[in-house]
Structure formats: C-alpha cells, structure tokens
C-alpha cells in the first residue's frame, strides 16, 4: 500500500530543481512612475527562466505599507520553461508615499509543493504617490515683508503696478504715459505723475508638524493625512500665485532618517514637485522615534528666509510655545493652522465620567495654549477638520495682521 506514496514522493523529488540549476531574472514595470494620491497603479512583474530546466515557481510580491490592493493577486504559481517568461499583475492604490521595491520573492519547488527553495530575485522600481491637493482659489495675502521681485502682493509703496496709488510731482525721466494730463491742464506750470501700487512676491515658509505624538487616528482616517493635504493645497496655491515657498517638516522621518525633510525656497512648478515629493515621504521614513523628532524645534528656523510668512500646520502641544517664541524673535509673521484633534477623533464611544473629564481637560489645555500663542502676535486659525480650509485661510491672510514686537 505504501508504493503509491513512495512513487508520489519520488516524482516530487525528480521534478524539484537543485539550487544551482535555478537561474531567474525579473523585471518590474509600473503603469506610472509618479501619480497623485488614490490613483490606480498597475504593477507588472515578468520573470524569466535563464536556466536549462523547467521550474515551478510561486511568485509573491507583498504590498508595501500604505498600499491597498485593488485588482489582481499578489502571488501566482507559474511554470517557467527554459527561456520562458511568466507574469504577475496587480493594481494598487495609495494615499501618498514613496514606494521602493528591491526584489520579488520566488519559491521554487516541485508542482506538488512538497519541496521549496526560497529566492529573492532583483526587481527594483520606485514610484512616488503624491498627496491629493484641492485647487484653492487665489488669496491676496498681506505679508509684513516682501521680496524685491515683481509679483502679486500689493505693497504700501508706489511703483509700476496696476492699481492706482497716488500722484506725485513730475520728475525728469518719468515716462510720459504716466503723466496725468487732465490735472496738468487744470494746473498750468505743474506736471503730476500717476503712481501705481507696487506688487511684489512674498516669501512663504510652510512648516508641517508630522511628529508621531501629534498623529491622531480615527477609524481608518489620519489627521496627518489631512494636514499633508492642506499643506499640499496651500503650497500649490502660493506657488501658482508666484510666491517663493519653502517647506519644513517636523518629525517627519522622510529620507535618510534623522534630519527633517525640507524643500528650500524656490518658485514655480519645479518647486511644487519638490514640495509634493517631500510631502509624499512624510511620516513614512525612519527616525520618527528619535528624541529630536519629538520636538517642533527639529525645524531649523534659522534657515527660514528673513521676514518670511511662516505658516505652521500643527495640532500643537503645550511644550511648543518656545518654538513660536523663536519664530517671533526672528521677526517672522506667523500663522498657526491648528486642526482640532478632539473634533477629528469624533464623539467619545462610551460617555463615561473619566473620559468626559479627560476630553474637557484636553480642550481646556488646547485653548490655553492657543491663547498663549496668540499673545505672541501669532495669528491662530482654529481648524475643525470638517471645514474647508480655503475660506478660513482667506479670512486670516487677506487682512493685515497686527504687528507686535516680542
């Protein structure tokens, strides 16, 4: 009775290749090399048998953290004849991230699955999924300082803009087209020149708080994702307006571990790409647990351009007051966009006394901290994550902010 079992075992042994007989190569291709968040991306893996024996391979390519499978299968059993190819296809979606594959796993064995040799076959590829951004309408900002470059920010000085600023006495060299001929006719012997509001660009510094302790999860939603989307939308709006923008991320991990991810000041679509690449990697790298990455001070504020309008997006903690004091000491105009973590977390599941008290204490502490920050002449925007950020930012930025020296 044991002979059929023995024959089965011998067949499995005969069909399983030896380690030295296996020679596989793999090629990975993605439908896109970069994509906006929540776009379906197809991955195709092609394996080729470079050896001289037919092999049975179970190819598997597990999802990287942050990916959601949308179609296809992550593993497949293939028969690869000498010189033959087999493929594995699947589709995934991700909110954002920088995904880097190095290899694909292959288990080579007999067709019955009794013997198995596990191999990692090189199949490198990288894809950047940029965060989604909402296209915000233009906001006319009123920064304290501007750059000496033409832009869209009206200043309190006359120059060559489009809006009327005032009249002054004619000076030799003024273009004749700027002369106010009507008034000159009424006042013989006196020539007046029309001046227009000078429009310049502003320096904007976006500072995003991606510290681990500031991360709030509610079901499958993350407050950090909302903050990242808000930062991306604001960056796109400011760069579209021609402002110079830089981005600093506190505790974001990012590439290379310890250092805070950043995009140094620049203009235009290339800078938008840099900023979105930087935001894509926020919170995905290593080094988020280091003591340095737990403080907002991780952001090198001395690298911020002089007089830049600093927009900080952070759910804030009581220990962060010093950071704002430093920003104000460097004479930066500061806007704090503070998402309400309590509102984001939603109502408490079980309304029990300790929980109610804890929520009250948290809300009180937050209000006190925001009050203290506001006393430093920092504009504070209390953002309930359900509200559209556009109208709130417009209301704050389009009116001149009070200046108070600290």
């Amino acid at each position: 009775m044991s002979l059929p079992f023995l024959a089965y075992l011998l067949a499995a042994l005969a069909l399983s290749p030896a380690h030295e007989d296996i020679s596989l190569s793999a090629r990975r291709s993605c439908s896109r090399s970069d994509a906006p968040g929540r776009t379906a991306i197809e991955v195709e893996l092609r394996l080729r048998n470079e050896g001289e024996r037919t092999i049975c391979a179970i190819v598997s390519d597990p999802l990287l953290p942050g990916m959601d499978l949308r179609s296809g299968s992550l593993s497949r059993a293939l028969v690869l004849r000498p010189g033959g190819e087999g493929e594995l296809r699947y589709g995934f979606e991700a909110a954002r991230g920088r995904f880097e594959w190095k290899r694909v796993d292959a288990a080579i064995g007999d067709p019955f699955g009794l013997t198995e040799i596990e191999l990692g076959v090189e199949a490198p590829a990288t894809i950047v999924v940029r965060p989604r951004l909402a296209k915000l309408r233009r906001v006319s900002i009123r920064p304290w300082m501007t750059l000496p470059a033409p832009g869209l920010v009206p200043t309190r000085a006359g120059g060559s803009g489009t809006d009327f600023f005032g009249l002054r006495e004619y000076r030799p060299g003024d273009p004749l087209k700027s002369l106010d001929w009507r008034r000159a006719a009424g006042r013989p012997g006196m020539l007046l020149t029309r001046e227009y509001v000078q429009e310049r660009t502003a320096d904007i510094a976006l500072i995003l708080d991606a510290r681990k302790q500031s991360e709030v999860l509610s079901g499958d939603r993350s407050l950090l994702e909302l903050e990242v989307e808000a930062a991306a939308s604001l960056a796109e709006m400011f760069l579209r307006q021609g402002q110079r923008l830089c981005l600093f991320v506190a505790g974001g991990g990012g590439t290379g571990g310890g250092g805070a991810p950043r995009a140094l000041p620049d203009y235009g679509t290339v800078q938008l790409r840099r900023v979105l690449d930087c935001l894509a990697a926020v919170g995905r790298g290593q080094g988020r647990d280091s003591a340095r990455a737990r403080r907002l001070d991780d952001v090198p504020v001395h690298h911020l351009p002089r007089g830049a309008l600093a927009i900080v997006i952070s759910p804030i903690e009581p220990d962060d007051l010093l950071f704002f004091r430093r920003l104000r000491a460097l004479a930066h105009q500061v806007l704090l966009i503070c998402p309400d973590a309590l509102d984001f977390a939603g109502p408490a599941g079980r309304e029990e006394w300790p929980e109610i008290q804890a929520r009250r204490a948290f809300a009180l502490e937050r209000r006190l901290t925001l009050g203290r920050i506001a006393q430093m002449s920092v504009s504070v925007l209390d953002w309930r994550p359900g509200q559209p950020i556009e109208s709130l930012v417009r209301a704050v930025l389009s009116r001149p902010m009070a200046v108070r020296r600290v």
Partner: protein
Amino acid sequence: MRRASPATAAAFFASLALFASSLVLGYGIASRWLGEAAVLGSTLGWILAGRRRASLCLSISVVTAAAGILLGASAPLMILGATASLGLWDLARARAGAKSPERYSRAYERLRLRSLAIALACGLVLALIALSARVTIRFPLMAAMAIAVFVCLDLLRRFLSGRQG
C-alpha cells in the same frame, strides 16, 4: 468570475468518487458494514473539511483502507482507495492554495494534474504488481532491510537539505 481552478475541482471530485466507490465495494463484498460506515464518514470528511484538514482526512482514509485489508476486504480495491485518497490530499491542498482566481496559471495547473496522475498511476501499478508477488523473508534479512530504510531516509533528508541550499 472564474472559479479558482475548475480542472482541479473536477479532478478532486473524480478522485473522491473513486475513493468512495472502491472502498464501499471492497467492504461490501466482505460484508463489513462498520467499514462501509467508516468509508462514508471519511468521504463526508473530505467534502466538509478537505481543504482545511487534508492531512487528517488522509490519515483516516489510509487507516480505513489498511483496516479493510486486515479485515479481509479486497486488497486491490483497498489500494485503489488509498491511492485515490493520496490524490485527494494533493488536490485538496491545491484547492486551498487557490484562494484567488488568478493564483494558479493554467500551465501550472496542467503540469500539477499531469504529474499527479502519472505518479499515482505508476504507484498503483507497482502496488498491484507487488500484490501478486509472494516473497518470504527471514527475520535477520528483514532487520537489515529496516536498517537500510533508515539509512536511505537519512540520506534522502541530507540530499533534500543540500538541494534547498
């Protein structure tokens, strides 16, 4: 949507029919009604828990077939049943592995079924030939053969670990 592997499923049910019919026939000829009940129980076990408990079902089926030979049922039918149960075990594992429709390529499925059919057919033919052979072995020779089997098994283990790198 295409089911995981229709050919594998068809082969599984064909093997199940072969297993049940050969053992029922064998026990029926020998008028062993308790054996009939055991065969029906193990057939039900394969249907209900074959995917998750394939090894347990195989053990029960082989014990049922071996008990049939000891109780005087037809040996060829019992061997046929045991061979079919081995096929069932392999196909149950294949079906359990094919969770998604695209898990197995058609070429892989074809190769697996073909290899299984050849291996089991060869084993069955060898077993039936062995049934007709009558060999008398003395105890010292049997002991020597047992030692040789252990040595061979150890060599096989080393050979397998060497192949797996």
